């Protein structure tokens, strides 16, 4: 095989290195065989047919991350964030879908802003909750040695506040993760709607 074509393929393989070994082998087998059959004579010919290694690899990665359905582990937002980002890149890569990619990017930034403000509000809430709980505990312990009943009451309030705080943190976290998952689903829909159709040249 032509050395320029070999170089194209090795570049493609490098860009796909994060794929599971089996999928990577299959993809490379397919495109190596394709290049052989097409008898490309130079790099330009390959890129004219398949696109740049970067474009092709993005398409492959995006396609792959959607066939691997988002099963469990949705509480690990990293995978979903990666998926969303891949869709943005794939959309931006093609002139036909570029505009949609920009819109999606703007939407994602808006979502990030929303999540960020939720986190800030949560931190403020937690801060004040800690102060209140601390105050209750302080008063409660102080009163334990003089007025036992009242002291216990305040201690109880303190624990209740603590429990409430944990509950709110849990709900807030769940909400943010659910939001991320929802956004990822939206990205997948966009992908299937705009990118998965055959690319008209």
């Amino acid at each position, binding site marked *: 095989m032509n050395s320029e074509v070999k170089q194209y393929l090795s570049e493609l393989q490098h860009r796909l290195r994060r794929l599971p070994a089996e999928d990577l082998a299959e993809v490379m087998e*397919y495109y190596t065989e394709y290049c052989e059959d097409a008898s490309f004579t130079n790099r330009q010919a390959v890129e004219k047919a398949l696109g740049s290694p970067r474009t092709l690899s993005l398409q492959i990665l995006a396609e792959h991350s959607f066939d691997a359905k988002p099963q469990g582990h949705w509480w690990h937002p990293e995978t979903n964030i990666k998926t969303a980002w891949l869709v943005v890149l794939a959309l931006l890569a093609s002139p036909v879908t570029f505009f949609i990619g920009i819109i999606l990017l703007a939407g994602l930034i808006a979502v990030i802003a929303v999540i960020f403000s939720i986190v800030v509000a949560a931190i403020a809430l937690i801060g004040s909750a800690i102060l209140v709980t601390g105050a209750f505990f302080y008063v409660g312990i102080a009163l334990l040695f003089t007025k036992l009943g009242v002291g216990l009451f305040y201690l109880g309030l303190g624990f209740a506040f603590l429990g409430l705080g944990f509950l709110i943190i849990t709900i807030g976290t769940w909400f943010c993760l659910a939001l991320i998952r929802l956004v990822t689903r939206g990205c997948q829909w966009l992908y299937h709607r705009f990118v998965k159709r055959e690319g008209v040249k």
Partner: protein
Amino acid sequence: MKIPVSADLLDGLVLALLNQQDNYGYAITQAMQAAIPVSESTLYPVLRRLKKDGLVTTYDQPYQGRNRRYYQITDLGKTRLTVITEEWNHYKQQLDRIFKGGSDR
């Protein structure tokens, strides 16, 4: 005129080609491109999905000292092809009705 081809229709076209004969990636791509404007990188995801869904299988055959991977339609694939062909014919009929001026409407 650019008529976009849906993913299902793409599946059907590939299945139809394979129903005529087993073939390898490059040849399938060439045959598809003879009929519709489709980019080279479109076909691999289609083939991969068809294989994953059990509609085609693959086998390797040596060719000029290297390997050629042939795709072959399965019985399940033939069933799916029939379904898609029916839907396509129905769709065609509906469109033709409008183009040819409609009869009973």
